[in-house]
């Protein structure tokens, strides 16, 4: 078992920490053995971690544990040095789920956006300002007065994302939230995350099945049957292509293309991860 202390000395007061967290469901259907076992994780201010796992690896369970929607059967979870009690992830931790239906509570976009802010006591003027800012970030400002059921799945998910980001959480937990976004908004969402991670030092923990989504993070942890089995940094993805494929992960198109080209005898430099980098590399290879 690896302890995931990602950056070096981090202050416990600005850190999210999971200490030997174990969890088992108690209901009849899923009850029994631990789905999460002795899980350790430390994520400090400004860190960006992707936790890559296939279906049933324990991703959603972990995401809900961190938000306080589930309570650990063993071990503890600390946010800024404070143990979280059941149902108390607090507004410092934001959680975006994969399906907007599970997340959205109100009939109107504006109500959905305002609810969390009202709960944490933000003033009326500030609420209006922040709603405009964050809806705008997700391209949804013109839908402020719209009933949510008039919107498409992708638009609903953008409202769900905006409604979490508007609370300006210090820690953002994302559980497979890009699957209902169309390609353009998926790309936009990934760059919004990177921006907020840099400008506001928001820590990001992204649970995903997609190697491509994971490659935006500073660190990638592989989760198998509730345990972290491997740690990577994104630049290593290219050298780990075959082992990831063997484990059943689908590679981003660029990584798959690099793998195939190497098999044909064309070495591709390690650092090439994005389509733009690949384009530049091929252009120079074909020209000189």
């Amino acid at each position, binding site marked *: 078992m690896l302890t995931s202390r990602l950056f070096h000395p981090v202050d416990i007061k600005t850190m999210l920490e999971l200490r030997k967290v174990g969890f088992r469901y108690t209901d009849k259907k899923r009850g029994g053995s631990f789905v999460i076992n002795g899980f350790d994780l430390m994520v400090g201010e400004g860190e960006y971690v992707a936790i890559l796992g296939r279906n049933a690896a324990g991703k959603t369970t972990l995401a809900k544990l961190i938000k306080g929607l589930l309570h650990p059967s063993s071990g503890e979870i600390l946010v800024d040095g404070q143990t979280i009690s059941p149902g108390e992830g607090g507004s410092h931790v934001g959680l975006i789920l994969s399906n907007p239906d599970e997340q959205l509570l109100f009939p109107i976009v504006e109500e959905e956006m305002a609810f969390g802010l009202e709960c944490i006591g933000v003033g009326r003027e500030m609420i209006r300002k922040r709603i405009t800012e964050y809806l705008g970030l997700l391209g949804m400002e013109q839908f402020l007065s719209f009933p949510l059921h008039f919107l498409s799945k992708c638009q609903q998910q953008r409202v769900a994302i905006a409604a979490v980001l508007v609370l300006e959480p210090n820690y953002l937990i994302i559980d497979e939230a890009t*699957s209902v976004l*169309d390609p353009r908004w998926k790309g936009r969402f990934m760059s919004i995350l990177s921006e907020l991670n840099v400008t506001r030092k928001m820590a990001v923990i992204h649970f995903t099945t997609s190697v491509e989504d994971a490659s935006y993070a500073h660190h990638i942890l592989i989760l198998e049957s509730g345990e972290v089995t491997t740690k990577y940094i994104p630049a290593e993805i290219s050298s780990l292509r075959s082992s990831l494929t063997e484990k059943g992960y689908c590679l981003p198109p660029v990584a798959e293309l690099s793998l195939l080209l190497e098999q044909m005898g*064309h070495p591709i430099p390690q650092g090439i991860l994005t389509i733009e980098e690949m*384009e530049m590399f091929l*252009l120079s290879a*074909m020209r000189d």
Partner: protein
Amino acid sequence: MIEVKHLTHIYNPGTPWEIKALEQISFRVVRGECLGIIGESGSGKSTLAQHLAGLLFPRLGSVLIDGANIYNAHGGREMRKRVGFIFQSPADQLFEESVFKEISFGLRQEKNLSSREIEERVRDVCRKLHPPLEDLMDRSPFELSAGERIMLAIASVLISKPEALVFDEPYAGLDPNNRSEILHQIEILHRNKKTLIILSNQSEGLIHLCDRVIFLYQGKIVAKGRLQEFLASGEIDRRVTDLLPPLTRMLIHLREKGIEVNPSLDTPSSVSLEIHRLLQKKGKN
């Protein structure tokens, strides 16, 4: 076979929530053809799909099957049965307790079929699917994997022998392995001369499948034609390039920079072969 004429759809007209989802859409699909309709979220795809399935009433413009309006008072209902519809999330159209009951639901409503005939027809449809559903007959539809659910949705539509099938985002939210299974299944339907309409937010996998494609942008058609010819031609509209798969986009950019490359490829394997060819040619010079 299917014709859409000057179709305009406005949601909540005259209210503050008015949205013009479709504007003056016209196209035709001939029998046995596979048409791709590609547009991002909010482009009007799902609205168009619902019109094709007869779920929305066309107030402006019309939807015709073999020249007859599908909302004709006489036989409109029968006519709509000729087009099968596979929804974006197949769980929305599944409701029975077992796979067998789900597929046979439509047949069980018809009084003149014996239970034996029904069983034979169900088995027949399931055998033809790839992967076949035969071994899953007693399972609950809600225990199936995402890929199997789509197969089940396809089977329950095929059982009533529609002439045309409309797929709304057939592979949204699926992993690439499931996606290629669905594409393979659609290819088989195409080979069997079913008329197909596929609505998708990405053109991935559709380049070689569809005979023609239409690109929708904010409720309007911005480009249409044969995708391969279209990609081979020089200038491509930006709104269209954005909807192409990333590797295809990369090839288009390379061509714009003077590299002689065939951009009508979209899978890592086909693109790698094309690049291999170019790099080898370069090596020889």
